[in-house]
């Protein structure tokens, strides 16, 4: 089944991959209150103007995520997907101290519960605002007692992709569906 999926995809990206990447971007947006502007600024800084010329393009590409309210299947291309990966890695680099602090707060919830609960509340707000809340998988993301594993693993993924080889590492993670 995996082989067939790869063979038929050609120059396109699977739904699962864009779903994972959009979730990672949403986590970065949860940390950075001005996340959309930061994503666009980083795209410009990385010379990705051709692929990501404005915020609307980034939004349209992220709408390929089937979990979104405004889901549209635009058939995101590999180069567009890779551009989003580069922006994600660059933003993770900038936000690493915060990502680390949130991860650390989950290790000792008695002492640092404020950081984790603030992060989780804002994440849920963003999910409610942008994702299709009727979907079972989105409901799982909204449930505070069930979403911690998904969030922690996503934070860990972001924290492991801040090196120069980060893009390759993230591609490795995202393509392994």
């Amino acid at each position: 089944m995996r082989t067939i999926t790869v063979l038929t995809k050609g120059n396109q990206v699977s739904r699962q991959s864009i779903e994972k990447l959009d979730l990672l971007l949403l986590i970065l947006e949860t940390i950075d209150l001005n996340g959309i502007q930061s994503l666009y600024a980083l795209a410009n800084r990385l010379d990705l103007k051709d692929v990501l010329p404005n915020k609307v393009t980034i939004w349209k590409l992220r709408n390929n995520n089937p979990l979104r309210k405004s889901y549209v299947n635009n058939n995101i291309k590999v180069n567009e997907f890779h551009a989003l990966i580069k922006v994600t890695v660059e933003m993770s680099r900038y936000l690493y101290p915060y990502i680390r602090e949130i991860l650390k707060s989950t290790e000792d919830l008695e002492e640092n519960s404020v950081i984790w609960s603030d992060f989780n509340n804002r994440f849920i707000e963003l999910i409610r605002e942008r994702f299709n809340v009727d979907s079972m998988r989105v409901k799982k993301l909204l449930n505070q007692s069930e979403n911690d594993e998904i969030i922690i693993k996503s934070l860990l993924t972001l924290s492991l992709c801040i090196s120069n080889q980060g893009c390759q590492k993230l591609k490795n993670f995202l393509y392994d569906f």
Partner: protein
Amino acid sequence: MQNKLSFHQSSVSLEIIGLPDYSNNESKDQISIISQWKLTIIDKPLIEGKIEHLGPIMNAFYIYSNLLVKNKIPLYESKLIDIKAENLHLHNIVLKSSKPNVKPLILKIGNSLLSDTINCFDQLNESPKVRIKKTDVNNNIPKNLRFRLNNKVKFFNFIVPPFIAICSLILFSSSFIYFYNPLEYKEKKELINP
């Protein structure tokens, strides 16, 4: 005089001590012959060893973190090091000494220290000043991605659909053998009307 290089990431630092390989015309500040390394994690015992231990320990961390983020069973075991997830936030590391009668060193680290440690290893891997046997990046790439990277997918896209089409045509047409045999029909007709 030995060279010393340090790589830092938040609460973790990795120190590499060694010499340049002058036979390869390397500069003074290069390290190719590693004599010692030290991994310092804040509030944890110092980890140090020989070069032959550094590679397997780095690999263990890379493999374990890969398993962890890919939702597979997070467990790594080898002669030198075991890493196991205690829960979602804590990881148990058992470092076994190669010397007899030395008890294994047991460490418990959280996700933040795990990512710091791996980022230190990444810095070492990417440093132009230290030449070690680099961790084979390709080994961590799943087969389907390697497919894409090698552009083999284009070849398969070209060859596989006609191949499947021909095979299915053969299979489909071979089933007609059971429906109509002209010779058999003729013989039956002769038997009825001799």
